[in-house]
């Protein structure tokens, strides 16, 4: 009888866990009963967001900054001087891009790296640059400057996808890093 009970419990558990990935990731239950990996950040899935951002640079996944940062970055006034460039968007496009960024920001995501970024940026001034987030800074502090700024194929930490070969999938782990011109470097 006990064996049967174990069997039924095991089977029920398996079925429960197997069926729940359909739940949205952005809820605690959705995250809890989900076998899909959520160690990294949610990749950019919105076509408009990706096309508007990647017109000039890598389309940063919104999970790399908290909501407040995106609101500071993605408004008409801020975009007129977007780190030295004019990146103005028409009203509808700006609204759509901001909505996507806010909905998928670090503080609304259950992805591990996003959770860490959200925790890091809870207090104090909200960062405008991803490279200002303490967690990001700490993760890159051991890399010598000549591999980034002095590297003609990288130039800045802002170009995530130069070294993070799976950045488009939202994957930033050490195994997928390949620094141009320094193929043998290991974290």
């Amino acid at each position: 009888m006990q064996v049967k009970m174990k069997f039924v419990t095991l089977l029920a558990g398996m079925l429960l866990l197997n069926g729940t990935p359909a739940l949205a990731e952005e809820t605690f239950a959705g995250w809890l009963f989900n076998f899909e990996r959520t160690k990294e950040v949610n990749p950019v899935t919105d076509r408009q967001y990706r096309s508007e951002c990647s017109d000039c640079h890598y389309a940063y996944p919104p999970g790399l900054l908290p909501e407040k940062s995106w609101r500071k970055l993605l408004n008409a006034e801020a975009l007129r001087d977007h780190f030295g460039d004019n990146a103005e968007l028409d009203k509808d496009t700006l609204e759509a891009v901001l909505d996507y960024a806010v909905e998928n920001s670090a503080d609304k995501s259950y992805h591990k790296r996003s959770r860490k970024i959200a925790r890091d940026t809870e207090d104090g001034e909200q960062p405008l640059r991803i490279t200002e987030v303490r967690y990001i800074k700490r993760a890159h502090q051991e890399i010598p400057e000549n591999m980034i700024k002095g590297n003609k194929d990288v130039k800045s930490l802002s170009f995530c996808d130069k070294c993070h070969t799976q950045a488009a999938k939202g994957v930033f782990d050490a195994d997928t890093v390949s620094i141009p011109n320094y193929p043998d470097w290991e974290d």
Partner: protein
Amino acid sequence: MKWNSKVAIICVGMCYAALSGMAIAGEMAADSAMLSGTSIYTHSNKAYMLALNESNIVIAQADSPSTTVMDSMSAKPSEFEPPAFSGSNIHKYMGLATVALVGLTAVTAPEEDEGATTPSTKSRTQGTHQSLGRAAAVMAAATVTSGLLAHWDDFHLEDGFTDPDNLHVMLGTLGALAMLNAVSKAPGNGHPGTGIAGGVAMAAAIKLTW
């Protein structure tokens, strides 16, 4: 008969694991397809326009030495292959194996009221349970060691106890200690609870950083 039931449970578990593996493999194949498309976007700032079939842009780009279709197609992700056996991956597989072993240990636990079974069947069940329990505890200890070696710079005390990586370390270590304690107490009373608690802690640790 009971032994056969347990074997059946193990077989169902293995089939389920195999099916899950197939699902993950399918998902990875879909991801690879996505990577080749999206990497073009990110490695060439005009590449998305090519995807939109804007022929005037294509022609203009053809004259530009900076960004060409070939540049986009030769984006780095297709050249770089992440290592299949890195410290991080080995740690991951060991953690999953530990949880699987804990599950098998629990399933093969001898029944309290097994008076009806023959002594040889009972001792065989106990032997399997004992071996699996020991294997789970050893695997748990190895998992913690491999995690410390592979991810030593991923946890920081200043991030506090609720940081996902710090929680992962604490739960994983406590889980391994609980399993080792359960094995040392076995077959005494209380060892099942300690062992299961260890397995749950280990599973929670995995989930937090999965």
